[in-house]
């Protein structure tokens, strides 16, 4: 810790006083020229310890003391012998030379120490920044460093997408007024420091752009306390920090952009897969419809047999039905995946939701038995519209893929605070890759191409169930056939309803 100026001068006075005291003690035994040596020693000590100014002070004081006490006539400042002027001159010269030399040495040493500290601080900062990956993370780390190393209050501001300024890390109190806010914006726009004067910086606030050559990524605002001053060396350090942080931000941006590009590629790939699958699935029914409809239209002479006409009309109706289902599924999946579909949970009767699903399937399950066993389930929190679709898709899937006429079973029970709903069939079951992949989009199980599905129904089921916070899985039943199990968490208990007595027939007005 360097001494203050006043203290170094006080020190030089003390040293001269000490030397004078020593000279007084020894003057019986020493020549006056030897006494000047003592003073010279004192001047050198002061020069080495305190620098040039105090050394000159010591030399002048020493000369005065020596003259006053030891040079005849004693106790006056008059000098009888001219050679003492030489002594005085030598003492002054020694003071100036030694003082200057030691001062230079000290400055060099001080400079080396500052450089070392700065390099250490920069090293620590760059090391800490290297392990951060997000912009917010980088800024928080950087601000912590700036505040700790420089002992100042600091704030990081970044531009948002809509052109506003967001303060991501640091001390919000750095910006005290609207003018400070505007200064941040100005720094962001111009890419040049604002509020920074040449030389040392006194109390107040200034703003540094953080930039790595491709535009200002953020602004570092620093506020100094009332008695705080930043010397040019520490300003240099701030500049160095700024470039380092700018580089780290640039690295974040490039990483983001790489990730974005990767995501774009994935989306593009998924889109082209979807397009090829969908165009096939759309074209097939459209071809059938077009063929049947034009045949009917062009049969001006009525040559077609009544049976054939009926068949063609049925083809149109069936294929249109298939198209409807496909488009419905595609829309649902798009809405589920884009997150625009919100799950609206209410307390529902599972039996009612299953019933609605079976009703809606209607003709498609005609001739097939669906056995439902739900016992006495309480109301369960779910989105009825979405869950009806889960049940519908699972039953539809079971009927299409079981490959036989055995009944489809729907079984539900409450276990461990969750609803378990199983839809099972007695068909050929799932292959190993089936049970892993059935819930993927566009995945069709073995032999599935005969069944007209587009591989979307189960993907929709999974999206809906997961949006409910539940799980769905596929497995084979021990006795053959596949079983799909939906688990829905049941949180809370259903609202109570007072029971009511049956008053039988002809009950009066209530």
């Amino acid at each position: 810790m360097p001494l203050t100026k006043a203290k170094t001068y006080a020190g030089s006075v003390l040293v001269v006083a000490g030397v004078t005291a020593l000279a007084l003690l020894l003057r019986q035994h020493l020549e006056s020229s030897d006494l000047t040596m003592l003073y010279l020693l004192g001047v050198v000590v002061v020069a080495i310890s305190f620098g040039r100014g105090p050394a000159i002070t010591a030399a002048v004081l020493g000369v005065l003391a020596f003259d006053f006490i030891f040079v005849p006539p004693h106790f006056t400042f008059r000098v009888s012998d001219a050679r003492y002027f030489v002594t005085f001159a030598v003492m002054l010269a020694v003071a100036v030379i030694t003082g200057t030399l030691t001062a230079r040495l000290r400055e060099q040493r001080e400079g080396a120490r500052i450089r070392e500290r700065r390099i250490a601080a920069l090293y620590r900062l760059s090391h800490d920044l290297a392990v951060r990956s997000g912009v917010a993370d980088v800024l928080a780390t950087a601000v912590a460093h700036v505040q700790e190393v420089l002992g100042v209050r600091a704030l990081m501001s970044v531009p948002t997408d809509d052109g506003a300024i967001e303060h991501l890390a640091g001390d919000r109190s750095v910006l005290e007024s609207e003018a400070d806010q505007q200064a941040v914006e100005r720094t962001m726009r111009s890419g040049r420091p604002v509020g920074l004067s040449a030389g040392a910086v006194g109390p107040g606030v200034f703003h540094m752009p953080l930039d790595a050559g491709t535009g200002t990524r953020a602004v570092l605002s620093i506020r100094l306390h009332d008695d705080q001053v930043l010397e040019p060396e520490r300003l240099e350090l701030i500049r160095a920090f700024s470039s380092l942080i700018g580089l780290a931000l640039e690295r974040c941006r490039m990483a983001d952009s790489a990730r974005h590009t990767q995501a774009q590629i994935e989306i593009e790939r998924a889109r082209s897969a979807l397009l090829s699958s969908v165009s096939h699935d759309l074209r097939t029914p459209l071809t059938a419809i077009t063929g049947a409809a034009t045949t009917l239209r062009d049969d001006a002479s009525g040559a077609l047999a009544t049976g054939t006409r009926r068949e063609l009309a049925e083809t149109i109706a069936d294929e249109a039905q298939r198209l409807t289902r496909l488009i419905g599924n595609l829309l649902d999946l798009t809405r589920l995946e884009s997150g625009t579909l919100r799950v609206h949970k209410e307390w529902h009767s599972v039996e009612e939701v299953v019933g609605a699903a079976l009703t809606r399937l209607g003709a498609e399950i005609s001739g097939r038995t669906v056995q439902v066993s739900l016992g006495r389930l309480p109301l369960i929190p779910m989105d009825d519209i979405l869950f009806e679709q889960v049940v519908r898709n699972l039953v539809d899937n079971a009927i299409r893929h079981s490959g036989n006429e055995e009944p489809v079973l729907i079984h539900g029970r409450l276990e461990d605070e969750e609803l378990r709903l199983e839809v099972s069939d007695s068909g050929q079951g799932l292959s190993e890759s089936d049970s892993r992949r059935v819930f993927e989009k566009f995945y069709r199980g073995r032999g599935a191409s005969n069944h007209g599905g587009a591989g979307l129904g189960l993907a929709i089921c999974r999206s809906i169930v997961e949006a409910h916070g539940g799980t769905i899985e596929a497995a084979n039943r021990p006795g053959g056939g596949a079983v799909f199990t939906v688990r829905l968490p049941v949180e809370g208990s259903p609202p109570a309803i007072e029971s009511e007595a049956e008053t039988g027939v002809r009950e009066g007005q209530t």
Partner: protein
Amino acid sequence: MSETTAPVALLIEDEVGIRRFLRAALEGQGFTCVEATTGSEGIAHAATRAPEIVLLDLGLPDMDGLDVMRRIREWSTVPIVVLTARGKEREKVEALDGGADDYITKPFSVLELLARVRAARRYRAESGTSAEIVESGSLRIDMARRRVSVLGNVVPLTPIEYRLLATLARYAGRVLTHEFLLREVWGPTSTEQRHYLRVYMAQLRQKLEADPSRPTVLMTEPGVGYRMAEADEAG
């Protein structure tokens, strides 16, 4: 209904393909069809052509279909069936609560459409049936004697169960929204308590349906409400 002049059906629909088959189906039922391709044209025709039924598409080019309906409702009680799309349950509820008599979801079959048109015309004339006996499938409700039976066997009901069933029966064939049913059965302060409805519908199905998970009379319209199947519709 006069025998000499055919009843007028007003089709407010901008898609020519849909208008064409609606016209074919309705003319087959003895209607004269008036077509409008925009909402404002539809409102004008509704005022001048005295239609007995309005089929209104909710997706019109010039204005919101729901607004068209509200405008017509300002002065007319003509039965209105709205044509809507799947996944728009909120729109259906809004339409029903805003004065539509029924809705039908695209794509639909002609049979489905004609059933809705019939039901809508019937109830507009009577504002809910005042028939003493309502039958649907094996269910028979004697409204005058408050007696409910299935296949001839009397089924005891609680007062609320009966009120709920009677409300559905009065509008058999029509979808009644949750809000409407709650207001009718429990009173105007209970319109948020939808779980009441679910519990009581489950109880009614237990008592009245052969297989409560495959209802044939007490139908659910997910997200919208409930409907009692009409006599010819239920199994």
